[in-house]
Structures are given as structure tokens and as C-alpha cells.
């Protein structure tokens, strides 16, 4: 029997601690839409998405009302478009992005992800065409998100793709400069990308997935922060236990919503992503959790250790609460989307170098970081290479979502609004990486045997 205290604690989590389901994402395979005629392929893509996801938003809203839990985003992820568009004879793939955008608007979802290519070992002609289409695609669409996987633990790092992505990010920023380079907020460069990630901008429905699936991403930094306030000064064992218990509760809620959505939509349940996803709202910050552990400002010495504990405890608590865990599953540290990270970056304590160290122990990578608009493409590529190396060697997903904001310098800041938040422009190293990036080729996969 439920106690009054338990009921009130759930209501407080939702009302005062920003507990929500961050996203219900429907993954849809588009492999059946390939066609030699690009227009026919785009028509099939539009029709299939509209058919499969017709009820997604309505069902999401019904669940919100009946269970009293906010579902912030309803989203769609699709097969990496490079795989589908490869069959079509056309010069660029922008029409495919436009078809995705139209379908997303028709369905009423917040975002659609999957304008993507997987090029960790090499690029097909279609992959390259897709990557070169990204700047225009992100300029001319509103809801489309794009991702490119440039490395993996098994394949190494495709440095030609890394170099190309440095230029693509710059071009995307330039094309969307009237919106402060916002196109780059919808573009992620991955190493070890996962096929069932429900979070944007990196969601796509991997080629190893079923016809369709419901994947759910939970949130809950505010709940963890609140729980840790109750154990101030206690040893780390207590901190870890507290985070685990909280993550368990949050994930159970995610599992319930995932099952309910799956049943009502007649779509198999895929995974629950056990992520702590912050928002710019006060009280919903991952940085403030780290500070609650005893750090004056996020980014000072001890931050990496605090984040390692948090990330691991979230997984340990969450994994028992769900029948199927996947996606990125860990604490996110997007700078612009986290009130505490924004403050720490503004104060100069949190730097890109420290953020890079933090990404060694958490999900996912250098995320939503504004840098000066005149940063060379080669420097951006080198930042991507560093992140990909961390992912490759440590067998984990890493990513870069970085915004070289046209016309902005260190000390400026940008406002993106909504969940994307605001970001101070952070300094990058001025010394050149151009000769390093110009080499091209592939960084070989690391040795993961000879363990004796």
C-alpha cells in the first residue's frame, strides 16, 4: 500500500524538482523507402513517417494527462538518411531533409533525427554527399537534426571525415549566422554512436534496429540535487547510494511511460535511456549536483571525480529499474542547457579543457559549447579528433556539438532560447592544428587484446 509520504514525494518531484520524461522518441526504419528516383524516395519517406508516427503526439499527451507526468518532447528518429538516399540518383540530399522536416511538422513532433551518415571506417559516395548537404539542410529546415559518426573502437577514427566535419560545422554556422549559428546546435559528430539513442541532436534509428521502436529518455537532475541536499557532509558511499535510489525511481517512471506508449502505439518497446538531462531552469542542473558534493564551482579540481561517481551511480540505480536499457545512459554536460554550467563557464572556472576531461567519465561529450566565430575549421576538427580518441580508446560514446558563432568573441554570449538555453563564448587554444588535420587518413583502432 502506498503511503501518503510516497505520494507526496512523487508530486513534489514533478512540481518542484523538474522531474519529467525528457523525450518519447519513435524510431522508424526508412530502408523500405529507397528508390532510384529521389523524388519518389522523398515521397515514400514522408508518407511512411506520417503513417507510423500519426498518433505519437496525441498518445504522448494522453499519457501526460493520465499519469500527471510531463513529457517534454515527442520526437522521431529515422534510419541514417545516407543509407536510404544511396539508391537515388541526385546531386545532393537536401530534398531528403526537407521531406523529413515536412513529415515532422505534419506529425507535430519537436524534432526529427537521422539526417546522418556512419563513416567511421570510410565514406561511400552517398555518405559524402549527405555530409556536404548538411549546412544547407540545417539552414532550410527547422526540426531536422543531423549526426555523423566518424570513429569507433573497432574501426579507429576516419580523419578525412573529421577534417570534413570541421569545415561542415563552420559552413553550417555561416549559413545560419542570422540565427547565431543555430544550425550547429542540430549537428553532432560522434565516436561510437549508438543506434537507439532517443536524445537529440544525435538520435537516429540504426540499421541494426527493428522496423520501429519506442525509446524513452528520462531526466531528473533536480531530483538528484534535492536528494543530495539531504546527505550533506556524508561520505561518498552515502552519496552514491542516494543517487542510485533516486535514479531507480526516475527510471521506473520512464519504464512505465515507455511500456504505456509502446502498448498504445502498437510499437515495440526499445529502450529506456538512463540519462540525467539538464535544462536551463534553476534547480535542474548537473553542475549544481557536482557542486552539492562539495565543489565551490563546477570545473574546479575534483569535478571529474564527482562526475564519475554521479554517472556510475545513475547507471547502477537505473539499470535494475528497466527491462531494457540503452541509448547514451549517463549524465549529460551540455554547457548552454545547464544553468550551473553556464555560470561556471561565465566565471572562467569551467574551460573546454576541463570539459574534455569530464567527458572521459560521463555521457556524452563536448556539448552545446559556443566558441569564437573565427575559430579555424582545422581547430574544430582537432577538437573532434580529441573527443573521438577518448571515445575510441575508452570504449564509450563521445560526441562534439560545438557552435562557432559568427561575429562573436570570447566574452560575448548567445541566447538560443527554450531548452537550448544561452552560452558564453568560450576560448579555444590559438595554436594551429592545421598540419595535423591536413594529414588525413585513419587513426588505427586501438589494441584491446593482450590483456594478460
Amino acid at each position, binding site marked *: 500500500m*502506498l*503511503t*501518503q509520504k*510516497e*505520494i*507526496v514525494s*512523487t*508530486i513534489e518531484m514533478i*512540481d518542484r524538482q523538474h522531474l519529467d520524461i525528457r523525450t518519447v522518441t519513435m524510431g522508424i526504419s526508412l530502408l523500405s523507402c529507397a528508390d532510384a528516383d529521389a523524388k519518389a524516395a522523398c515521397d515514400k519517406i514522408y508518407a511512411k513517417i506520417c503513417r507510423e508516427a500519426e498518433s505519437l503526439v496525441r498518445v504522448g499527451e*494522453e499519457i501526460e*494527462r*493520465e*499519469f*500527471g*507526468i510531463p513529457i517534454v518532447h515527442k520526437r522521431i528518429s529515422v534510419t541514417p538518411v545516407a543509407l536510404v538516399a544511396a539508391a537515388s540518383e541526385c546531386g545532393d540530399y537536401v530534398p531528403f531533409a526537407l521531406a523529413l522536416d515536412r513529415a515532422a511538422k505534419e506529425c507535430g513532433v519537436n524534432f526529427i533525427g537521422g539526417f546522418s551518415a556512419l563513416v567511421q571506417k570510410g565514406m561511400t559516395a552517398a555518405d559524402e554527399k549527405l555530409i556536404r548537404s548538411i549546412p544547407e539542410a540545417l539552414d532550410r529546415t527547422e526540426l531536422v537534426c543531423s549526426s555523423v559518426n566518424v570513429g569507433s573502437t573497432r574501426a579507429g577514427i576516419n580523419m578525412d571525415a573529421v577534417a570534413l566535419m570541421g569545415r561542415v560545422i563552420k559552413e553550417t554556422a555561416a549559413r545560419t549566422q542570422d540565427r547565431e549559428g543555430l544550425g550547429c546546435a542540430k549537428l553532432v559528430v560522434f565516436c561510437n554512436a549508438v543506434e537507439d539513442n532517443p536524445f537529440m541532436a544525435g538520435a537516429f534509428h540504426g540499421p541494426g534496429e527493428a522496423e520501429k521502436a519506442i525509446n524513452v529518455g528520462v531526466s531528473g537532475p533536480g531530483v538528484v540535487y534535492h536528494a543530495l541536499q539531504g546527505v550533506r557532509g556524508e561520505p561518498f558511499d552515502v552519496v552514491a547510494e542516494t543517487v542510485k535510489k533516486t535514479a531507480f*525511481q526516475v527510471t*521506473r*517512471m520512464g*519504464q*512505465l511511460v515507455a511500456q504505456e506508449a509502446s502498448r498504445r502505439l502498437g510499437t515495440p518497446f526499445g529502450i529506456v535511456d538512463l540519462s540525467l538531462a539538464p535544462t536551463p531552469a534553476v534547480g535542474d542542473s548537473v553542475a549544481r549536483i557536482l557542486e552539492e558534493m562539495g565543489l565551490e564551482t563546477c570545473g574546479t579540481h575534483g569535478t571529474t571525480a564527482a562526475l564519475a561517481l554521479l554517472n556510475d551511480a545513475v547507471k547502477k540505480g537505473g539499470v535494475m529499474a528497466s527491462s531494457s536499457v540503452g541509448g547514451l545512459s549517463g549524465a549529460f554536460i551540455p554547457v548552454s542547457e545547464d544553468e550551473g554550467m553556464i555560470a561556471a563557464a561565465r566565471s572562467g572556472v569551467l574551460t573546454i579543457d576541463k570539459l574534455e576531461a569530464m567527458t572521459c567519465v560521463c555521457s556524452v561529450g563536448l556539448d552545446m559549447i559556443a566558441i569564437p566565430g573565427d575559430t579555424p575549421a582545422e581547430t574544430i576538427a582537432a577538437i573532434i579528433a580529441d573527443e573521438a580518441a577518448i571515445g575510441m580508446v575508452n570504449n564509450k560514446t563521445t560526441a562534439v556539438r560545438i557552435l562557432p558563432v559568427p561575429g562573436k568573441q570570447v566574452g560575448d554570449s548567445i541566447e538560443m532560447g527554450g531548452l537550448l538555453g544561452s552560452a558564453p563564448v568560450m576560448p579555444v587554444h590559438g595554436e594551429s592544428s592545421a598540419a595535423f588535420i591536413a594529414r588525413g587518413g585513419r587513426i588505427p583502432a586501438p589494441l584491446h587484446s593482450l590483456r594478460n
Partner: protein
Amino acid sequence: MNAIVSVIGRDKVGICAAVCTKMADYRINILDISQTIMQGNFTMIMAVDLEQASAPFGEIRDALSQLGEEMGLSIRIQRQEIFDAMHSI
């Protein structure tokens, strides 16, 4: 379907009567009621059964929410599964 009705706000005369009347209007059976003062707030929790309810869930939810607004309280109804999921293994 079982649900939890929670009423939170400043204590005053007639809260229980008004909420129970609304339940009766919609033919909702009350299984359990408890009330207390938590952190200075009047808190009433009702476990209810909507098997015989005369209106869809959404309409009942809106009616309770409106009653709450009229009385200066927060009144919500949520399906019980969400609390079970979070608090029992």
C-alpha cells in the same frame, strides 16, 4: 482503473466535502482517504476507483483542476501505476 487524487494547499472549511461531492457527481468510488498537515500545507490523498466513472479521465481531471482553482488549492488526479512504479519493486 485506480487513481490517486491529491489535494494540497491552505486548510479551510469544506475542502473534503467539495472534493467528495465532485467524486459522487462523476460516480467515482472512494477507496481510501487520508489527510494531514505536511510542511504547513493541508494534504489530502484519496485512492479512488474509476470503474463506474461517468466521464472520461481527461474531463474528470479538468473538473478537479478547475475546482482546485476555485478553492485556491492544487487538486490533481493521476493513475495509480505511476506511484506504484516509483515506490514498490
